[in-house]
């Protein structure tokens, strides 16, 4: 291929490619996904089988593309010109795939089906996973061969480069990027245009551009897919950035766990340099920009920009204090722009199509799209690109197809170890930088791990913290020691040794680590713990007080019981137990609690699920009082309900009396309405006090005349309750203060009166059980 010596060379080459018909629609083409995930599922074998299969006179082009997204159903492929989408293909299906070209009909068993009942879906656009997606960053993933620069140019690559080198000054490009308000996709969301502006202003001549591909977040693989599947777009984005700030050197920092990304980027750099789109004298304009690849060496903290630069310089990956910001003084003290891979891949499109086009997608403060790695307990896992502002529900249930095995959704974790867990109540939250921050999480790089009821949130928090703790570089004590101490407490809680006060300690430590740490890792490390405490405090409390893990994940917690009605007497539990805690009589198996170490071996061994893990308290209530566990659960649930629920359950009646009336009037009113307490109000009908039977007793005892006005004898320090108060806490307060009447007030409005009897009768059905058993 000839080197381009001017922008016109590039334009004419593109024209040539199009007249030659490279990648034009309508031809026989099979696009096999050869991303890492599909590769692991065997897509290379499929390609080989297709190549080797005798095709007689069929003219078929095989293209090995980057990640097409639906990793769960890999290997996937697209069969053009029919646009059939095949999934879970295997080498022995080669003949079926190729027969498509003879019959024109799809191979039915390779098509995507939502379930056995639903008809198969023929085309990619019909698959629910792809329906709501909007592909900007992933525009070329799955369309082209990532190592073929002609493919890239044929589908519109380097159009932005054409535009800037022929008609735009660096200032105009910068203005366009600023106008597009593209925010850093690495997590913090700092506007890229503003960052570039800082570096541009700097008078220093040697400037650097770094693409941050050190995607260390567990559960995230967006950057990897882009680097593997569309490396030229990244080089294009870097070149535009270099053009704006006038930088001549660039680095791509890639994790060493991504060998394919390193390989493809290496090929891309070499090809781009050969053709004159990188290196010296780009497109004959005299502009130089060389790009080097640096492989990471397995340190999560190197994803932090200052630590990354230290690593490129050959130092330990310690973060450095900011300011000075990298844009002023970064790599080898040169002004350095460091952007996430995804941010840079967005840039060529913004330049090509204009900022207004970019602003038309997403929300006002977070324009554009975002790539998420949707993983965890969803049916269809994979790479998802959606416009900002889409709700979590749409991503998880519409795109991801809901939870595996129809279990109950519990939480979604965004932002990796720096993010937080978002509970069900926020499923309709629009996904953008600001709204995620509001609920205590972050956008992060885009990992999205879905959890169901089988995941223990305390265990998840421990998992993330153990990750950040081991990845903490150790430079600053709040992060080094703080995360360690927090982890110790979590270990204690999950192994059944939690103590009251541990949650508060965790919260306190978390806040300290958050405020005291030097870099992004420490500043965000407590987030998973703090958000799980915020939204799933109950689970923490259960672990600490009841020694029970509702997801049955943590071992060493709960009480192990064999449910006789479900037991099939297979004896596997007895075999599994290493401590001889499972005892056998002639007719049944049972667990000797004195020997049981709660290791869960029997629980996992039981084929019918007859081994149950229960709360110790529940087991006792069941044994002693015969209360079925369901009733205990109902009661516990009711205790968590609020005073408003009680008020709703009884007829609405508010009895009031003016405070200038006499005690006699009050007694008459109470007797007439048959209530034991009434509200005393002032002339504006505002609550002044309450008057109850106990006040009458007090008056009689103190020889107070019945004609005394209420104002003179009323108690002034009454306790009022908000309707949102939980029943359990209202009971606690009422019994501690020895009051029987609970006035419920919302702001200045009187909502109603609840007596102790109301509380009891509300919880009655279950309490009846208890009292029956007692007497």
């Amino acid at each position, binding site marked *: 291929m000839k080197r381009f010596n001017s922008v016109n060379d590039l334009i004419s080459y593109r024209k040539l490619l199009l007249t030659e018909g490279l990648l034009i629609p309508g031809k026989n083409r099979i696009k096999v996904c050869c991303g*890492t995930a599909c590769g692991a599922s065997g897509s290379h074998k499929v390609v080989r089988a297709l190549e080797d299969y005798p095709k007689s006179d069929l003219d078929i082009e095989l293209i090995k593309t980057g990640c097409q997204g639906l990793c769960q159903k890999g290997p996937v492929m697209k069969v053009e010109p029919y646009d059939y989408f095949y999934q879970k293909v295997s080498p022995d299906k080669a003949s079926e795939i190729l027969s498509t070209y003879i019959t024109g009909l799809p191979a039915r068993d390779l098509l995507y089906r939502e379930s056995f009942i639903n008809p198969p879906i023929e085309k990619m656009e019909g698959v629910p996973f792809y329906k709501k997606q909007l592909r900007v960053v992933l525009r070329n993933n799955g369309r082209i061969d990532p190592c073929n620069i002609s493919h890239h140019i044929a589908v519109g690559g380097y159009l932005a480069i054409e535009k800037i080198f022929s008609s735009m000054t660096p200032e105009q490009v910068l203005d366009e990027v600023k106008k597009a308000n593209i925010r850093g996709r690495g997590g913090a969301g700092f506007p890229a245009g503003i960052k570039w502006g800082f570096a541009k202003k700097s008078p220093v001549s040697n400037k650097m551009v770094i693409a941050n591909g050190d995607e260390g977040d567990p559960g*995230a693989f967006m950057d990897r897919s882009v680097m593997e599947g569309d490396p030229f777009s990244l080089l294009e984005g870097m070149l535009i950035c270099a053009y704006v700030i006038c930088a001549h*050197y660039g680095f791509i920092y890639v994790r060493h766990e991504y060998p394919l990304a390193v390989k493809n980027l290496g090929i891309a750099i070499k090809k781009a340099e050969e053709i004159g789109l990188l290196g010296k004298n780009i497109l004959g304009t005299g502009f130089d920009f*060389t790009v080097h690849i640096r492989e990471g060496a*397995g340190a999560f903290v190197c994803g932090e920009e200052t630590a990354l630069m230290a*690593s490129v310089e050959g130092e330990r990956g310690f973060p450095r204090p900011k300011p000075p910001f990298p844009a002023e003084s970064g790599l080898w003290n040169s002004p350095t722009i460091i952007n996430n891979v995804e941010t840079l891949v967005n840039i060529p499109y913004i330049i090509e199509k204009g900022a207004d086009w970019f602003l038309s997608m997403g929300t006002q403060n977070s324009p554009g799209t975002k790539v998420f790695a949707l993983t965890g307990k969803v049916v269809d896992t994979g790479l998802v690109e959606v416009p900002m502002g889409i709700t979590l529900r749409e991503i998880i249930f519409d795109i991801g197809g809901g939870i595996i095995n129809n279990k109950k959704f519990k939480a979604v974790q965004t932002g*990796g170890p720096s993010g937080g867990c978002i509970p069900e109540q926020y499923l309709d939250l629009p996904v953008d930088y600001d709204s995620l921050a509001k609920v205590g999480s972050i956008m992060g790089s885009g990992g999205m*791990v879905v959890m169901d009821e089988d995941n223990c949130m305390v265990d998840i928090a421990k998992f993330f913290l153990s990750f950040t703790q081991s990845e903490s570089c150790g430079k600053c004590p709040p992060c080094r020691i703080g995360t360690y101490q927090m982890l110790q407490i979590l270990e204690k809680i999950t192994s059944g040794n939690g103590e009251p006060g541990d949650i508060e300690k965790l919260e306190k430590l978390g806040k300290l680590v958050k405020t005291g740490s030097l870099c992004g890792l420490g500043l965000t490390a407590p987030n998973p713990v703090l958000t799980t405490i915020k939204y799933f405090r109950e689970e923490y409390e259960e672990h600490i007080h009841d020694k029970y893990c509702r997801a049955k994940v943590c071992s060493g917690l709960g009480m192990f019981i064999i449910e006789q009605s479900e037991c099939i007497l297979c004896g596997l539990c007895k075999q599994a137990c290493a401590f001889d805690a499972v005892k056998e009589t002639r007719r049944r198996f049972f667990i000797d609690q004195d020997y049981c170490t709660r290791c869960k071996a029997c629980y996992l061994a039981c084929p019918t699920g007859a081994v149950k893990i229960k709360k110790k308290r529940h087991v006792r209530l069941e044994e002693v009082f015969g209360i079925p566990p369901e009733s205990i659960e109902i009661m516990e649930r009711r205790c968590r309900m609020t005073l408003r629920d009680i008020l709703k359950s009884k007829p609405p009646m508010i009895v009031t009396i003016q405070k200038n009336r006499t005690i006699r009037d009050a007694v008459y009113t109470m007797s007439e309405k048959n209530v034991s307490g009434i509200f005393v109000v002032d002339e504006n009908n505002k609550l002044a006090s309450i008057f109850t039977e106990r006040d009458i007793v007090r008056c009689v005892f103190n020889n107070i005349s019945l004609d005394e006005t209420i104002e003179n004898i009323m108690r002034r320090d009454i306790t009022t309750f908000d309707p949102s108060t939980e029943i359990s806490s209202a009971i606690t307060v009422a019994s501690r203060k020895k009051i029987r009447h609970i006035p419920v007030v919302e702001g200045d409005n009187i909502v109603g009166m609840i007596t102790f009897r109301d509380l009891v009768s509300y919880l009655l059905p279950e309490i009846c059980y208890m009292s029956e058993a007692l007497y």
Partner: protein
Amino acid sequence: MIIEEIEIDEQIGEVGRILSKQERKRGLLIHVLQQIQENDGYLQEEVLRRLSKNLNISLAEIYSVASFYKMFHFKPRGRKIVRVCLGTACYVRGSKKILTTLEEEFGIKNGETTEDLAMTLETVGCIGCCGLAPVTMINEEIIGEIGTKKIEGIVNAIKEE
């Protein structure tokens, strides 16, 4: 790989023009360590001593850098390196069980090597194959969607070697 013959200017590339001699050498350090490890499997003290002389960086500093990054090892490693992914997605789908099974089967802990140098057991933060969770990497080969049966297969495959 011969330490004394490292072409510093060639390996650091174009950017070397704006760097001082020492900066160039330093900037190459991690890259060279990676190459040594790829060649020898681990970092031997003898090699690092020679590297220290050649790059004019003290041995202590080389160790300080090498020990910071998880990738580098100072002890010989097994012929098969089994990396169990403990990323979030894999963890959520039960990769801990894979790790404990392998630990029990081979009688080694995470990070250790069997005595006959047959295999090294390691964990990794994320291999980026979350779509196939839980995932384990054996040398360069990725095995996804591991259930009880596949674990047995893995164990047998390693034992056969």
